[in-house]
């Protein structure tokens, strides 16, 4: 971890209010993200992993202010010597300018491309809006981007439905790259793709990272992909990070019981090594009314009385490796 990270997130919270009744009274909140801290270095890939509803996607979208944060700060330092800006306290128009640096690729390339806009329209829009290029220069830029992501330049006048899922994801990547960003949030960017296509897109993302000095916030649930692509991994459970460390630390010396259970559940593609799962009973508790103790206590195989009474602090295990568990 560098002393001047690209992004430093502290106390990030995102609550979605619940309204009920004829007067739409505010009756509670879905605490989707409830106090998340992490840093992301230059040219680093940090993965956020966890099961459905743990808040990993909300985290990524709140960072880009696609959702307005409830609390917290996100210090953005585009170059190590420059002063940092808090993404959460700047105005919307300032944020719009900063979006050149912060881009996102979505899971579903079908849903994230407008079916009535051609490929060149989708990729070129950002260049036009930010006044980066126009006319024939814009066409050249779009064609160069298409070729960089492995599509032929001639396809620029086609519509999204004429492409396969993998090709559409390449279009999504080209669009995210168009403004030469520093950070790309990859929200389940390879989850919907077939194995052979997924490998192609993963290789592409890795190549682009080197070429354009990109940082990735990689949101995913497939842990074998995460292990392959990440420098560091943060494991989320019910709105909070329960363990964070380097990929090596998480995959070889996981400390939190949830991380251990999650890793043990990964199926291994070798019939001779059928994995021994740590069975987790029950379901994830409701984010509307999370338990006051450790959120994982109800499903944890080693939970004690104190786990139900108070939420454990994040504790450092070794340099760069912290976890929130009373039993460490």
């Amino acid at each position, binding site marked *: 971890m560098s002393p001047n990270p690209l992004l430093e997130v502290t106390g990030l919270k995102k609550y979605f209010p619940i309204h009920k009744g004829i007067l739409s009274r505010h009756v509670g909140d879905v605490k989707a993200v409830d106090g998340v801290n992490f840093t992301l270095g230059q040219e680093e890939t940090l993965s956020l992993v966890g*099961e*459905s509803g743990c808040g990993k996607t909300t985290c990524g979208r709140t960072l880009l202010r696609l959702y307005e944060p409830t609390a917290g700060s996100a210090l953005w330092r585009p170059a190590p010597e420059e002063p940092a800006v808090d993404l959460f306290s700047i105005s919307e128009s300032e944020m719009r300018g900063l979006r050149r640096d912060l881009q996102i690729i979505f899971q579903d390339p079908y849903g994230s491309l407008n079916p009535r806009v051609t490929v060149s329209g989708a990729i070129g829009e950002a260049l036009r809006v930010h006044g980066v290029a126009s006319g024939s220069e814009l066409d050249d830029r779009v064609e160069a981007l298409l070729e960089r992501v492995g599509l032929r330049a001639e396809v620029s006048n086609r519509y999204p439905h004429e492409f*396969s*899922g*993998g*090709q559409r994801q390449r279009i999504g990547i080209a669009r995210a790259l168009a403004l030469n960003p520093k950070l790309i949030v990859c929200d389940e960017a390879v989850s919907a793709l*077939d*194995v*052979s*296509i*997924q*490998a*192609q897109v*993963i*290789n592409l993302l*890795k190549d682009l990272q080197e070429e354009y000095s990109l940082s990735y916030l990689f949101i995913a*649930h497939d*842990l*074998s*992909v995460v*292990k*392959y*692509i990440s420098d560091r991994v943060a494991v989320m459970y019910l709105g909070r990070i329960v363990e964070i460390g380097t990929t090596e630390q998480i*995959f070889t010396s996981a400390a939190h019981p949830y991380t251990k*259970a*999650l890793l*043990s*559940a*990964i*199926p*291994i*593609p*070798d*019939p*001779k090594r*059928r*994995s021994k*799962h740590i*069975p*987790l009973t*029950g*379901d994830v508790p409701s984010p509307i009314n999370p338990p006051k103790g450790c959120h994982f206590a109800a499903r944890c195989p080693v939970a004690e009385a104190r786990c139900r009474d108070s939420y454990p602090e994040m504790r450092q295990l070794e340099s760069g490796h912290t976890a929130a568990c009373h039993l460490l």
Partner: protein
Amino acid sequence: MTDEPLLEITDLATYFYSDEGTAKAVDGVSYKILPGETLGVVGESGSGKSVTALSIMQLIPQPPGKIVGGDIRFKGESLLTKSPEEMRKIRGNEIAMIFQEPMTALNPVYTVGDQIIETVRLHRGLDKAAAHAHAIRMLEKVGIPSPTTRVDEYPHQLSGGMRQRVMIAIAMSCDPSLLIADEPTTALDVTIQAQILDLIRDLQNETGMSVLLITHDLAVVAEVAHHVAVMYAGCVVEYASAEELYEKPLHPYSIGLFKSLPDLAGPNERLVTIPGMVPPATRFPSGCRFHPRCPIATDLCKTEQPKLVAPDSASGRVVACHHLDEASKL
């Protein structure tokens, strides 16, 4: 396990006709399932694995679809010559099926109990009270906590994992000899996936049923399957025991699939990819359908489709490739 297969598919062809041409979704598929075993069918989107399963159940919408060739034999009898009436007695009774998305497969306006009761009253002729008791027993069997209250709940009140358990309870309620599971864990989180796979395996050990597991996930197959059929573009390209296949895949496509998996245990080498993509079913290439993406294809591969042949006579393994010697060096 006896050698007499429970289900045997030979040269099955299921086509879909549309204005854009004929989609040969399944075109010459052969595989068999032995009693009590799990066959894993793997392949990417559009390889025809689900259409094969729907053909077994005769749930192909007709038109536009039609089974145009081959045979499906279940317990020694052809399913293709059965009347709709006879098929109804087999479906949900002797052959049951579960799907990827349990929320769309369950009826949202009936309680989960009603949906189990419907199945057993229809096939087993139980009266209401006996069927209700049976429903509770089934929910208990698939590990749903407090089944006596859950039986009266609606699908939306359950989590994704619970809904898949309910689907399995419905499928198991008539004690089928074959369970077809079409991507049963794809929509589930990895910890829930592990629970569901364990459940299917436990039920299989208990009842001795056969399982046809359709998935795109090679790791899931490795966890549960005894035999594996690898499908590509409407054909089976390799059929082998799970140990043999994972030890050493022989078909260039199978080899490519394994190489493109990120390895959880090994070092992070660059992923080897298969160039190009699966062709659409209306425009399958001539000859071997994998030849445009195959690193060792020759002119022979462009013109002549290879047949499934046994590379050695000892095991039941079959592979469809003209150049097995070259492929073994990949």
